[in-house]
């Protein structure tokens, strides 16, 4: 039985176990989603959107689908995966199960808690009805799969005129309790008018067992709200991730999603922004630093549907050994979206002789009074810069690292949490195998 069949038949077991909120409207959504997934199946390379990313190698495993009981983790053992230098709210999952011990949630003035609890609580019914699964791409089979099965994730609901005093960290740990596991976290983020929040999300495997995470996040950014989202992808080599993040923005809002991909076997990031109002600003930033046979695919979409909005997209990649990068950046500017500014930049350095990048900027512009640009560069390390640095006494290895560092710095500079910036800087230095004598 292949994974698709297994999942479809598991759904009924799931239902029988009463895990699927049978009496809520969410159940109907799940039923529709599994039907759609059954029809669509997992994407293959024949699908245009998956042309350069084959899921074959990650789908061949016999994944456990249902999370088991909680495995305990000591904070000291996983402290390094948190941004522990600063105060934060924490929503932590271990093998897909909420860990109240490691978490720090709140209902004081705003809700930062579990999606499962929010779905069951009548108090949140209106929010769930209004927002759950509303902007997920129904043509995406992996997102449908998540919708059908996701029982756990983070629920963030911030009312209007509220600035969160500290960032929120969402951390998903996998302990290796199963030999091969499929995790499907689901996050719902609703940020009210004039409100602001910062979110850091991380998936971290703590063993060498195989894990596939199929995560979906919906983010609703209301009028003049400001949301800053950071994704840290530095998992080990048996961990794969399919992340689908959908952002809907209302008038005058600012949203940024920053993706840092350094680890993992296969990572696919689907990131989609939808504009529902004027004077919106969207920022999409990413940096991928890969080696060995790692594969990272960044698939982005910005849909400009209203006039006077701006989007800024900057993705950088450094690929060593036989690693593979994919960048597919789609920008759609509807006819109504006059005075749009949409800028896209994708820069790649290939270091490994067998490293590959497949870059595909896709601009579909139907309005005439717009400023849109895209730039795509693929290069190697600048030899003259290397010689220059060496001539000043900096050894080749450090000179290379410094140049690569500088190359990625433009993205790192966009991080608004100083402690996170310094953490990412260190992760990059580690990944490039150098100790830098200073911090940017």
């Amino acid at each position, binding site marked *: 039985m292949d994974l698709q069949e297994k999942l479809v038949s598991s759904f009924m077991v799931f239902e029988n176990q009463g895990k699927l909120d049978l009496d809520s409207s969410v159940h109907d959504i799940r039923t529709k989603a599994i039907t759609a997934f059954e029809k669509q199946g997992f994407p293959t390379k024949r699908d245009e959107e998956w042309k350069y990313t084959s899921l074959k190698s990650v789908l061949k495993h016999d994944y456990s689908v249902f999370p088991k009981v909680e495995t305990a983790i000591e904070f000291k053992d996983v402290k390094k995966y948190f941004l522990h230098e600063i105060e934060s709210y924490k929503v932590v999952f271990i093998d897909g199960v909420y860990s109240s011990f490691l978490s720090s949630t709140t209902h004081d003035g705003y809700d930062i808690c579990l999606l499962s609890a929010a779905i069951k609580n009548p108090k949140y019914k209106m929010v769930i009805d209004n927002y759950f699964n509303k902007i997920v791409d129904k043509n995406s089979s992996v997102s449908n799969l998540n919708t059908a099965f996701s029982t756990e994730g983070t629920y963030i609901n911030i009312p209007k005129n509220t600035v969160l005093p500290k960032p929120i960290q969402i951390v998903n740990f996998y302990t290796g309790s199963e030999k091969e596991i499929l995790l499907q976290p689901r996050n719902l983020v609703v940020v009210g008018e004039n409100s602001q929040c910062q979110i850091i999300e991380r998936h971290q495997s703590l063993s060498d067992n195989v894990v596939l995470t199929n995560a979906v996040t919906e983010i609703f950014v209301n009028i003049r709200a400001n949301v800053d989202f950071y994704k840290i992808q530095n998992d080990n080599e048996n961990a794969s991730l399919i992340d689908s993040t959908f952002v809907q923005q209302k008038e005058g809002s600012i949203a940024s999603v920053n993706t840092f991909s350094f680890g993992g076997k296969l990572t696919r990031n689907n990131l989609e922004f939808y504009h529902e109002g004027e004077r919106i600003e969207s920022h999409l930033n990413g940096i991928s630093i890969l080696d060995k046979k790692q594969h990272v695919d960044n698939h982005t979409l910005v849909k400009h549907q209203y006039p006077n909005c701006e989007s800024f997209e900057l993705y950088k990649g450094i690929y060593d050994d036989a690693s593979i990068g994919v960048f597919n950046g789609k920008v759609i500017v509807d006819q109504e979206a006059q005075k749009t500014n949409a800028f896209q930049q994708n820069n790649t350095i290939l270091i490994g002789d067998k490293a590959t990048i497949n870059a595909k900027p896709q601009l579909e512009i139907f309005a005439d009074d717009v400023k849109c640009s895209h730039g795509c560069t693929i290069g190697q390390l*600048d030899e003259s810069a290397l*010689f220059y640095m060496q001539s000043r*006494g*900096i050894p080749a290895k*450090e000179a290379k690292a410094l140049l690569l560092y*500088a190359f990625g*710095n*433009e993205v790192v500079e966009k991080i608004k949490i100083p402690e996170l910036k310094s953490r990412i800087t260190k992760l990059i230095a580690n990944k490039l195998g150098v100790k830098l004598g200073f911090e940017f």
Partner: protein
Amino acid sequence: MLKIKNIHAGIEDKDILRGINLEVKAGEVHAIMGPNGSGKSTLSSVIAGNETYEVSEGDIFLDGESILELSPDERAHKGVFMSFQYPVEIPGVSTTNFVKTAINAKRKAHGLEDLPAKDMLKLIREKSELLEMDRKFLSRSLNEGFSGGEKKRNEIFQMAMLEPKLSILDETDSGLDIDALKIVANGVNKLRNKDNAVIVITHYQRLLDYIVPDFVHVLHEGKIVKSGGKELALELEAKGYDWLK
């Protein structure tokens, strides 16, 4: 200090240097002049260790030891410095951080600890004042968006920071207006002492009014065709290079 023996070098199949011999002693300033394409920049690149050029014959000694097999950074650690004709822009790395990295790399090669931050700052302040540099350049990305003159001044600032034994100034005067030229030359002169040496590579005599050489060599088609004292530079200025060909 520096002894160049019958150096032949080129790029791919093209011979550029065809048997250069030169000896530079501590405390001396040598000027190498010559028309475009005579091999001036190739000579400085070969001394600094640029691997783009292949040395097919001859040897280069620094303090009696061959440096031909050494990488550019190893040569720098031994005290070779080259000021580039076209300094490279490195976006994302500030001048300060770059210089710190370079100094500490050299210290490490000599088995020393990193220079304490306080001492580093003091040194940076001292040397940047010597070059009358605007502080804001120190925190900006190295050479990015700098004018030609600012880039050259930054080169000499780095030279001052690294305190090399042998400095090669490759066309340092190009792109400088007269005021900047004076500041740069003044900086170089202040750094001179009996233990170090300078090779000035230039097309024009102008710079040599300010950095006065002990010897002038004329390079033509990859060979030194004439050597003399500082008056040779004036003669070249008046007569051009044609009479030497």
